């Protein structure tokens, strides 16, 4: 069975996400891979949201915007999302509004037969299970686990509800449900971008996380707060983002690997502190979960609109690292790199992600957690006698200790300072030396940056150039182009600043693909590598890029 797409749609508060996640777990329980992405409005009740699940035998984490099966939890949802239904696709909803659908009055049945509307969603899940041809027992197991905390009666009721939906759908399915989900013995790892990021930070040795709630980053701190015991990580909700980032810098100065998470608006408030971290050479990791701006913009949507801002954030000139993970698995690698490189070069590191990546659920064959162990770069106080925190060295990197670690006194000064961290006005020597020192680190750092990923570049005539979370969509696009006989390739960046030492292959036609309106990566690459682009695909409606979307916009 190949690429079955299921979409669950409903209003905020109706349980779209819960239904989606129960289904995803059940499917993985059958031995299949799942990729799920969500789009929802910035409201707590009402509106219409969707949760799209792509089912395949091997992981395929590219978003699709189509439905073989659409499950609509309310009539409005059925109306809004019906266009997603493929020919031969079906709708499962309460009322009959089209051919090829299974009408089931979830709520009424829940009320009548289980005495509570609450079970409507489980009936719907049961119906979906039948339509896809699932093994009901696996679904029961997932539901039992999910509702265990609520006690046996609830578990039992859910079992009955699921069966009801299953049986009702089986009738309705006659002739319109070709799908089956025979069990396979593969077992994929299922992880959301948010979970990946939080776990990766813990694995990388993050001990301190201060943040101010802001979508789509809030769930990261929530996850770590929930698991503070396992990970021994301290989390604090700050009064504002300025406090959050300055707390993180303070904690880092005191020796703790520290991070803060936010979105564009909160990051803007942190810009002064980014400059501070650069000046006092204190490691700092900032996760910027992008959403469409400017200003408040579209709080629950996705974008790649803050690249140039992140790269240039902070007044004055100093070393800075900017990474942009491609997917959940890459998040583990890039978060580890962010912490390790920030520590090694004593600089601020910004991890650019977005609502799409954070809120999506990925399947992976296996994530090599062992590879992401932290590398610490604190100096050994016993090896130092006359300690100068900001001693000028060849690499620009000075011995970093933390206060209280030893008898050596550790200092930090946001003013221009001498090697001991005291204010200086010595323009003749100290000042230029310190400016040079901080920028030398950037040159060193550049050598540690990995070149972009190249896919089918040699054979390709036309090369798509993109970055960050759109990688799966770009790979999808390349495949589609290949099937159309177009010799397309991909150059994909996840290490954004400093840009790596790299040469773009000669004699190719480059096309820029980004989830923004102005082509921010393109501008960066033009100044760094002097390349030019033949054209672009820029998506700016708050939804993620997809393979079909890219293909549709491309003139060839």
């Amino acid at each position: 069975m190949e690429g079955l797409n299921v979409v669950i749609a409903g209003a905020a508060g109706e349980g779209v996400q819960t239904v989606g996640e129960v289904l995803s777990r059940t499917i993985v329980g059958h031995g299949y891979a799942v990729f799920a992405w969500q789009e929802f409005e910035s409201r707590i009740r009402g509106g219409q949201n969707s949760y799209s699940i792509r089912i395949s035998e091997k992981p395929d984490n590219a978003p699709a915007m189509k439905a073989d099966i659409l499950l609509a939890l309310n009539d409005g949802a059925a109306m809004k999302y019906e266009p997603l239904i493929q020919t031969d696709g079906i709708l499962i909803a309460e009322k009959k509004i089209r051919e090829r659908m299974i009408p089931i009055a979830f709520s009424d049945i829940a009320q009548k037969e289980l005495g509570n509307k609450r079970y409507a969603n489980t009936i719907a899940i049961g119906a979906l299970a039948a339509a896809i041809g699932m093994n009901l027992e696996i679904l029961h197991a997932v539901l039992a686990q999910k509702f265990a905390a609520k006690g046996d009666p609830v578990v039992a009721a859910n079992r009955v509800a699921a069966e009801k939906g299953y049986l009702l759908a089986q009738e309705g399915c006659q002739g319109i449900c070709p799908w089956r989900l025979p069990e396979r013995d593969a077992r994929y790892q299922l992880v959301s971008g948010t979970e990946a990021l939080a776990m990766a930070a813990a694995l990388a040795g993050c001990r301190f996380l201060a943040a101010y709630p802001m979508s789509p980053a809030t769930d990261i701190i929530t996850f770590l707060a929930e698991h503070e015991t396992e990970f021994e990580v301290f989390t604090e909700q700050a009064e504002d983002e300025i406090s959050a980032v300055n707390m993180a810098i303070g904690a880092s100065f005191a020796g703790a690997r520290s991070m803060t998470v936010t979105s564009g608006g909160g990051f803007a408030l942190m810009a002064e502190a980014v400059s501070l971290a650069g000046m006092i050479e204190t490691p700092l990791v900032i996760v910027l979960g992008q959403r469409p701006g400017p200003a408040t913009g579209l709080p629950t949507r996705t974008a790649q609109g803050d690249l140039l801002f992140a790269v240039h954030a902070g007044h004055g000139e100093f070393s800075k690292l900017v990474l942009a993970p491609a997917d959940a698995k890459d998040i583990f690698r890039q978060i580890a790199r962010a912490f390790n490189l920030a520590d090694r070069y004593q600089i601020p590191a910004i991890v650019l992600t977005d609502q799409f990546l954070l809120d999506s659920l990925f399947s992976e064959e296996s994530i090599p957690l062992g590879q992401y162990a932290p590398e610490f770069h604190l100096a050994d106080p016993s090896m130092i006698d006359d300690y100068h925190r900001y001693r000028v060295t060849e690499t620009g990197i000075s011995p970093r200790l933390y206060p209280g670690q030893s008898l050596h006194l550790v200092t930090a000064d946001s003013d221009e300072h001498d090697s001991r961290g005291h204010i200086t006005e010595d323009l003749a020597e100290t000042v230029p030396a310190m400016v040079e020192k901080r920028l030398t680190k950037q040159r060193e750092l550049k050598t540690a940056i990995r070149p972009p990923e190249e896919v089918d570049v040699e054979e390709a005539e036309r090369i798509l150039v993109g970055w960050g979370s759109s990688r799966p969509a770009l790979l999808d696009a390349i495949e589609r182009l290949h099937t159309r006989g177009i010799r397309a390739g991909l150059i994909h960046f996840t290490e954004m600043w400093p840009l790596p030492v790299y040469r773009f292959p000669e004699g190719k036609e480059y096309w820029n693909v980004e989830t923004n309106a102005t082509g921010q990566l393109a501008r960066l690459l033009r100044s760094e590598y002097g390349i030019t682009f033949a054209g672009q695909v820029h998506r700016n409606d708050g939804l993620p890029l997809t393979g079909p979307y890219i293909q549709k916009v491309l003139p060839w």
Partner: protein
Amino acid sequence: MVKIDDYKNDVPAQWCPGCPNFGILNALKAALTDLKKRPHECCLVSGIGQAAKLPHYLKCNFFNGLHGRAIPAALGIHVANPLLTTIVVTGEGDCYGEGGNHFLHALRRNPDITVVIHNNGFYALTKGQASPTTRIGEKRSLQMHGVEIAPLNMLAIAIVHDCTFVARGFAGDGDHLKSLLMQAIGQPGLSVVEVIQPCITWGAHPVSWYRERVYLLGDDYDPTDRKAALEKAMETGEKVATGILFSTLPRKPFADRFRKEITTRAFAELKSVSPEKLAGFLSLHTKPR
């Protein structure tokens, strides 16, 4: 044995000769010495301003960060390494102006740190603009017609929020200030010490003028009586009370639960999280959020 000279360093002060900030500096050195704290056990944290330059002029760990942001930095330092004695040294512009929100929320958190505010009644380093404590009517470099908006009463705000130790000192009375600082540093939870710090360059009055106007709270004054303390803090008029305005029983300090339930160690000393711990989450972990 700790000697005051252990805190001596050779950094030339950028303050004006005779600035009362030197009095505060000496009182702080003396307090730390008498508390038998050693330089590497202390971390001074400041923002930007004349007051905020103080940490450069004694031997100790220090974090001289951004204007207005000393308190958040201090919170991070204190939480990451509770073994340090963390002291914020700030000006009233730094702490009540740019940093007002952080002071407010520090009162909520009750961290076991001490905040010393040099209050000279304006922005001295930037040449004399009004600050959140300048009196109405006073002419300032940017308020030529006299200040038109009311001063903040941050000590009253601290008392309203049950800050465990609220005191006012005078830079011209080093011995008294030293004893206040010793008690403030000794008291668990958040201690706030506002110090009247005449500025002899931009100020309207000489130190003596202030000396005539400050008085010491007597033994009849009960700093544990919050109502009385609030009245005292809201007193207007010529004379200004110095001493402990308010002190109350220690309540749970910031990060108390974490320190009790999770770990007491400095974060820098914790071992890495083993990958096994995560493995569980990855196998079918899709707990809905």
